[in-house]
């Protein structure tokens, strides 16, 4: 996080705000609610309070304007700059302006007012932009379905105003660090020749063009996928990737979620109802056999016959000796299986049923 140079802050922590005008894109009630919720996020983690006033000069004046609105920072029409806000202080200090050449929404469509307002009010309170892509105070607009302060945002605002009086200090999600030696994964899959690693709300992606690991929100590609996925695998000859969470799964082709999903794993794959979720999954391209890992057992599904193979489930220890009795994630590359358990990774040869190498979980990130 970054505090605004000069560390401007409100000495009076009981602040007022006023919505001077309303966008035609939403009802007044929807705007009121989005603004109120945005202040609520910051109130929950600080001693600050925010009271809405309907007339006169408030600490934080909120308005919808377009183009040059005489504050020396003209807006630029649709897209580009969405809004801006001024650091704490008298007069224009603390005020937030929203570009009314944008379309303001209360859902996934661009641009979600609650999400943008929560960011702008961070500026109104004294925060600058954060370099943490998972933080609300990151400069670029990313809407991942829910609006919450990350731990980075909380640390930043509490550096200015101290903690809330809440007996239980609220915490926020942390953004994965690709070179953190303690990094573990929820799910991993290949996708059109690349690899995607999933953790909480984020994916990490390696591809031949960029040595850097790309880290971003899963919602950037698949807005309606849930966070905290359990398993994922690619059926390459169908150009399809399947994502699992609980007893549901989604199928995507590139960035398009296929119609009619989520479906349940019982009807589609024939799992018994005792199976509540899948830990990991991988499909062998040359045999069309997909292995599902659930607790200490594994099932084998035939993608061509579209049915489970007889004789399963088997113990993981029997089918894949040496990798332990539980799998977090697995993918296949170059004919080998790469099994992940905690911070460990096993390169496994399914033909000889032997572990070839023991690696760190984040060995693919060139740390």
């Amino acid at each position, binding site marked *: 996080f970054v505090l*605004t*140079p000069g560390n401007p802050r409100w000495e009076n922590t009981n602040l007022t705000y006023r919505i001077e005008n309303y966008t035609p894109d939403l009802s007044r009630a929807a705007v009121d609610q989005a603004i109120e919720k945005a202040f609520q996020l910051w109130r929950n983690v600080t001693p600050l309070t925010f009271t809405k006033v309907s007339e006169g000069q408030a600490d934080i004046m909120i308005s919808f304007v377009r183009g040059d609105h005489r504050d020396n*920072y003209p*807006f630029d029409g649709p*897209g*580009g*700059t*969405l*809004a*801006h*806000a001024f650091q704490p202080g008298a007069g224009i200090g603390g005020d937030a302006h929203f*570009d009314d050449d*944008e379309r303001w929404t209360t859902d996934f469509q*661009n*641009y979600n007012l609650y999400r*943008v307002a929560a*960011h*702008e009010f961070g*500026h109104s309170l004294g925060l*600058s*932009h954060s*370099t943490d*892509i998972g933080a609300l105070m990151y*400069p*670029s*607009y990313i809407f991942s379905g829910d609006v919450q302060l990350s731990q980075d945002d909380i640390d930043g605002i509490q550096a200015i105003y101290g903690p809330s009086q809440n007996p239980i200090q609220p915490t926020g999600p942390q953004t994965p660090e690709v070179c953190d030696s303690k990094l573990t994964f929820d799910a991993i899959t290949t*996708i*059109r*020749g*690349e690899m995607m690693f999933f953790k909480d709300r984020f994916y990490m*992606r390696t*591809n031949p*063009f*960029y*040595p*850097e690991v*790309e880290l*971003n929100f899963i919602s*950037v*590609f698949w807005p309606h996928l849930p966070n905290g996925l359990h398993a994922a695998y690619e059926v390459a000859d169908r150009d399809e990737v399947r994502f699992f969470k609980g007893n549901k799964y989604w199928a995507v082709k*590139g*960035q398009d979620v296929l119609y009619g999903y989520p479906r349940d794993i019982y009807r589609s794959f024939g799992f018994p109802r005792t199976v509540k979720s899948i830990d990991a999954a991988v499909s062998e391209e040359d045999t069309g056999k997909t292995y599902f890992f659930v607790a200490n057992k594994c099932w084998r599904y035939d993608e061509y016959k579209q049915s489970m193979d007889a004789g399963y489930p088997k113990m993981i220890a029997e089918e894949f000796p040496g990798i332990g009795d539980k799998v977090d994630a697995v993918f296949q590359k170059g004919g080998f299986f790469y099994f992940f358990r905690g911070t460990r990774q096993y390169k496994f040869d399914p033909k000889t049923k032997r572990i070839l190498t023991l690696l760190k979980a984040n060995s693919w990130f060139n740390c």
Partner: protein
Amino acid sequence: SHGFPAATSETQEQDVETVQKYLENYYNLNSNGKKVERQRNGGLITEKLKQMQKFFGLRVTGKPDAETLNVMKQPRCGVPDVAQ
């Protein structure tokens, strides 16, 4: 983020406008309207580009490569990323 597969890292120079505006708006590039390629002090542009690439965790090349332009085209907050 790039689609699947990721775009190649070849740079399309025609986005000079995007670079100019972005650096003026968010990285205090004062160029009073002169075009980037005619900037006498191309070094200033390179420095500002490196500053932006470092902020966003991109490869710090000082060149408007594809992933840098990709970030510059994303809608965002109007507050600069560096102190005025």
